[in-house]
C-alpha cells in the first residue's frame, strides 16, 4: 500500500530522514537475498515478495518476483501463495508495478537496490519495522523470514542479517551509494 502524502509533507519527511541519519542523497537500501539450490525432482523458481512492515502492519512494497511470462497472465494465479504478502497489500496491488515486480530468479544471491529517496521510502515514518521476505515455490515449500529494524537505519548496526531454513538462504540489509 502506498502512502498518499502531499508533495510538501513528502519533502518534509525526506528532509527529516536525511537530517536524522545523515544519509547522502544518492544512497540506496541494498538487500541481498539468497535462493538456495535444492535437490528436488521438479524445480521451479520461487515467487518472492519483499516488503517493510510497520507495527500497525502497514506494508511498503519493495519487490515481487513472479512468473511474468505465462500466457494470459496465468502467473498471477499463484500470487496468493505468497499468503502473508497477499494479505499485506499484495491483493490490493494491480500487478505488474514498475520498479517492484520482476521475473523470478533461480538459485543464487540476488541483489535488490532501492534508492532511499524513492517516494515510498522517503515517506516512511521513523520507527520499528520488519523487513519481510516471503518465498513460495510451485510444488514446493513456502517460507517467511523477518528481520527487525529501526528506521532510519542505524549505519553502525549494518549489515543486518537473517536466514531462512528451507526456501530462502541468507538475507542481508545494507546501505550502498
Amino acid at each position, binding site marked *: 500500500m502506498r502512502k498518499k502524502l502531499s508533495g510538501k509533507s513528502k519533502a518534509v519527511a525526506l528532509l527529516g530522514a536525511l537530517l536524522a541519519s545523515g544519509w547522502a542523497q544518492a544512497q540506496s537500501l541494498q538487500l541481498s537475498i539468497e535462493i538456495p539450490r535444492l535437490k528436488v525432482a521438479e524445480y521451479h523458481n520461487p515467487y518472492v515478495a519483499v516488503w517493510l512492515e510497520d507495527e500497525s502492519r502497514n506494508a511498503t512494497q519493495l519487490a515481487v518476483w513472479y512468473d511474468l511470462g505465462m500466457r*494470459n*497472465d*496465468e502467473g*498471477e*494465479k499463484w500470487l496468493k501463495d505468497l*499468503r502473508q504478502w497477499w494479505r499485506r497489500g499484495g*491483493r490490493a496491488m494491480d500487478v505488474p508495478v514498475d520498479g517492484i515486480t520482476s521475473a523470478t530468479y533461480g538459485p543464487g544471491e540476488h541483489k535488490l537496490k532501492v534508492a532511499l529517496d524513492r517516494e515510498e521510502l522517503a515517506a516512511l515514518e521513523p520507527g520499528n519495522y520488519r523487513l519481510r521476505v516471503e518465498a513460495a515455490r510451485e510444488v514446493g515449500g513456502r517460507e517467511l523470514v523477518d528481520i527487525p529494524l529501526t528506521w532510519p537505519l542505524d549505519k553502525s548496526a549494518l549489515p543486518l542479517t537473517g536466514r531462512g531454513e528451507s526456501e530462502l538462504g541468507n538475507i542481508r540489509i545494507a546501505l550502498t551509494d
Partner: protein
Amino acid sequence: MKKSLAAKVLLTAAVAAGTAMQAQAHRAWILPGATVLSGDDPYVTFDAAVSNTIFFPDHVALRIDGLQVRGPGGESLALENASRGRYRSTFDLQLKEEGTYKVSTASAGLRAFWRDADGKRHMWPGRGKTADDSEFDSAVPRDAKDLRVYRGSRRIETFVTAGAPSDDVFASTGVGLELVPVTHPNDLYAGESAQFKLLIDGEPAQDAEVVLVPGGSRYRDSQEEITVKSDGAGLFSVTWPAAGRYFMEAEYEDDKAAAPATRRRGQYAATFEVLPL
C-alpha cells in the same frame, strides 16, 4: 431368530432414536476449493452436500437448484458445470470482478406440530415437503391438542474472494438467522481471533448457540468442536486453533414470533477457510 415383543419394541425405539440423532447431526455445507484467489478471472470449484462427517460427502447431495450467488457489485451469478451426484453436488464459479462473493441457499416458513383426538402426532408441512404459508389455515387445525407453531428459517452459506476483499455481500436481508462478519470471512488465520455478528430478522440474535467443527473429522476420534454463545449484541468470537476448513452452525430460538407462530427459530450454517500464518 425369534424376537420377543419387548425386544422388538426396544429395537424399534433404538432405531428411531438413532435416526433422530442422525437427522440432527446431519450437516449441510457448501465447500469452496479455495477461498482466497488471485489472477485474472479465477475459477473456483465447489462441493455441496449433507453429511455427518465434516467434510466427507457420506449421506446425500445438497440440492443446488435454489442456490444464490451474489458478486461484489450485487450482481447475481449463474452456476457453471453444475452437477448433482449421489453424495454431493458440484459446480464452478468464475470470479470476473474483484471482491467478495457469497454463495447461499435460504428458506423460511411456518411449521406446525399437534396431536389429533386419538393422540396421534401430526406435522405440517409433511416430511420432505415445503411449506406454503398461505395453506396454513386450511392445513392446521387451530384448536388441536398440543399445537405448536414455529416460524423457522434456515440458511447455508460460504464466501470466496478474488483480489482484495469487499463487504457489500454482507448486507442483511432481514429474514431469518444471518451472519454479518466483523472480521472478513476470507481473511482468517490460524492463531488469530475472528468476530462475527448474528442477526435474527435483522436484529441482534442473543444467546444463539454456535458450534464450529474443523474439517477432516474422519481422521480423528473427537469432533474437536468449539462451542460459543452470541452476546447481547449478537456478537461472538472464535480463535482458530489451526489452519484448515471449518464448518460453523448456529441455532437460535425465542418466542418473538409473528402470528400464527408462537416460537421463532433460526438455523445458520457456513464454511470458512483458515490459512496458516
